[in-house]
């Protein structure tokens, strides 16, 4: 029955977000003299609700400017954006992620903000690291709206039922794949629910593992970093956890390869007790379920070399199609600095990069947000250095990984064979891109 409730929840919150959208579209008529600013982001019900509310606040504060919001799920966002680029009608302000941002800068779809800094755009309170992350070739392009890292979330009720106690029998901030195998199988034994999602087809976890093994996803010259040994060891490690009964059956995980929907995570569907995501997604996932989530890092090898990075989760950027860059950058500025607006946004997009905003948020955090902040405090100094953004073609390499991992999950071909196939294909893709 919990499934039904979740769906109902989704419907109501989507309906709510929708009605807010309608309100902001029709609630204040746009007069001819009003300046229109369009803001486009990828979201989830929780994020959409908050962002539309923030747009209403901004519109209330700034007569003469009407911001309108547009939102889609992550999978459709870039498709829509692509057609908008082709049509020359991109919204003024768009959301970008660390991985893809640089392709859009290189292509000229996103324009520099330097001319507006100190005028319509205030970045005086931003962390230097966040400014650096949005700077390419000496020009400042992207305003970070939150920092992020890889996070494992676990269902505290199921963990407790199985006697796996965070801080006692399991250290959420340093545990190995072997330990994971042990307690995942124990959880399955005790509760009937698999202890963890199966990450065989999870590229995020694979990239972590690669760094833990002392390699990088991409070498300095743009070639592919993981070796045959690393790919094989990664898949064998997860095969071990799967064979021990710690994950859902292989074919079930195969069905979820490459699926980015939060609602399909094992912790949300109730198929497993532990799922893997970006830390900012914790708030959204907690909103989809009843049981309380705890936060942990990704599993590691006994050498405990950090594999995760802290990076901006998302940026807001100004597009070359913006008709009124002053108004657009003023809105962007408020989006990261205005205390009323950031109070509503909270930590949903990650930990804010503005120290003043962080301080103001501290006393009013929701329980899930508190978990998120604590997690961030705990991982400081235990993460890998931020690497250069991936070269073009990386999205296709990722999709290829997810596709081939399915044959590992189904046990169709041997792990060494699939690993060789994957590395060959990755090489070909990068050569073509």
């Amino acid at each position, binding site marked *: 029955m919990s499934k039904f409730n979740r769906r109902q929840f989704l419907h109501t919150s989507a309906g709510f977000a929708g009605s807010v959208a309608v309100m902001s579209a029709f609630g204040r008529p746009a007069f001819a003299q009003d300046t229109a600013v369009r803001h486009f982001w990828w979201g989830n019900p929780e994020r959409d609700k908050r962002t539309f509310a923030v747009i209403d606040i901004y519109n209330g504060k700034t007569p003469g400017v009407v911001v309108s919001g547009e939102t889609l799920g992550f*999978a459709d966002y*870039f*498709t829509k954006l*692509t057609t908008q*680029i*082709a049509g020359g009608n991109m919204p003024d302000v768009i959301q970008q992620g660390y991985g893809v941002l640089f392709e*859009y800068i290189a*292509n*000229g*779809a996103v324009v520099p903000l330097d001319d507006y800094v100190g005028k319509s755009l205030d970045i005086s309170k931003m962390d230097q690291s966040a400014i650096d992350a949005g700077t390419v070739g000496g020009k400042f392009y992207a305003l970070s709206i939150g920092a992020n890292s890889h996070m494992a979330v676990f269902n505290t009720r199921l963990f407790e039922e199985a006697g796996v106690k965070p801080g006692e029998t399991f250290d959420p901030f340093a545990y190995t794949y072997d330990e994971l195998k042990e307690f995942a199988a124990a959880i399955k034994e005790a509760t009937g629910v698999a202890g963890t999602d199966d990450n065989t087809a999870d590229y995020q976890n694979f990239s972590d593992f690669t760094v833990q093994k002392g390699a990088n996803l991409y070498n300095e010259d743009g070639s592919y970093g993981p070796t045959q040994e690393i790919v094989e060891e990664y898949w064998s490690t997860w095969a071990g956890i799967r064979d021990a009964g710690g994950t859902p059956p292989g*074919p*079930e995980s*195969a*069905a979820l*390869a*490459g*699926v980015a929907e939060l609602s399909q995570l094992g912790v949300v569907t109730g198929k497993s007790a532990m799922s893997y995501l970006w830390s900012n997604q914790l708030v959204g996932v907690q909103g989809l379920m009843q049981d309380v989530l705890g936060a942990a890092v990704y599993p590691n090898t006994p050498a405990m070399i950090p594999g995760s990075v802290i990076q901006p989760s998302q940026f807001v950027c100004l597009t070359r199609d913006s008709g009124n860059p002053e108004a657009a950058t003023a809105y962007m500025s408020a989006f990261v600095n205005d205390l009323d607006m950031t109070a509503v946004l909270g930590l949903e997009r990650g930990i804010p990069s503005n120290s003043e905003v962080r301080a103001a948020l501290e006393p009013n955090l929701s329980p899930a947000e508190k978990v998120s902040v604590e997690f961030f405090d705990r991982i400081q100094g235990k993460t890998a250095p931020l690497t250069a953004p991936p070269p073009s073609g990386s*999205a*296709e390499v990722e*999709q290829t990984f*997810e*596709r*081939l991992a*399915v*044959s590992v999950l*189904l046990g*169709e071909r041997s792990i060494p064979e699939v690993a060789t196939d994957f590395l060959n294909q990755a090489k070909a893709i990068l050569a073509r891109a």
Partner: protein
Amino acid sequence: MLRFFRRNFAGYAFLSPWLIGFFLLAIGPILASLYLSFTKYNVVRPPQWIGLDNYFYMFQMDQRFWKALQVTFSFVVISVPLKLIFALGVAMALDKGIRAIGWYRALFYLPSILGGSIAVAILWRQLFNYDGVINSILRLFGGDGPYWLSDPKYSLWTLIVLAIWQFGSPMLIFLAGLRAIPQELYEAAEIDAAGPVRKFFAITVPLLAPVIFFNLVLQMIEAFKSFSGAFIISGGTGAPLDSLLFFTVYLYNEAFSFLRMGYASALAWVLLLIIALFTAIAFWTSKYWVHYENERG
């Protein structure tokens, strides 16, 4: 010329909505895609002329192109005949003069109206999920259903079943065709003591041949172009293991996931040529098995 138009004016008048749409809306993009198929074009930067490179790459280097062809051909070859047989079966059952036939016709046609929609594809995904309705029913009978969607052995079959389920429009056309067969032929056959099988193959099939042919061509083209079901069920990527990598899904992937609009345009033109080729083959073979009543021979 003028006489030709005067004589056919009514025909062109009926065609005009399509003609206007074609010349105003479709022909521009069609020609543009032909041009783009000879370019490297990532949308953001202007297209770059590369001659036949896209086509060379496709035929010489691109393994997924061949995989997409294989999946698409399997789908067409299996789903089209099954769908036509099913449609003909239902049409013959309805032709028996059942009461309230109008209702049945509407009822059976309903899936075809819904069929191409995203909602039905999502419904299909729910039905065939491991925990879905189909497996729940199998479990009632003590069976343990497979992973229909994530096992490449079965995934294409779920889409074939979806295609067959949309048998409505060929069924309606068959029904009209069956009505046009003179009853006295069957009566004469009965007097000669022909059984139902004999009657079917000696009377129904030959006299229905033009209608069968028409449905075959239409459904074949439809099947080659099939997209939304595979797109939704495979999560847009052709998963699992490219077993649902329909040609159209691959094309979409190249265009919108990897921003290779030039290459995707080339793929689109190859699909067009494939469909044209198969339609031509169908027309050519029809000489040998389709006979029209008004044909003199």
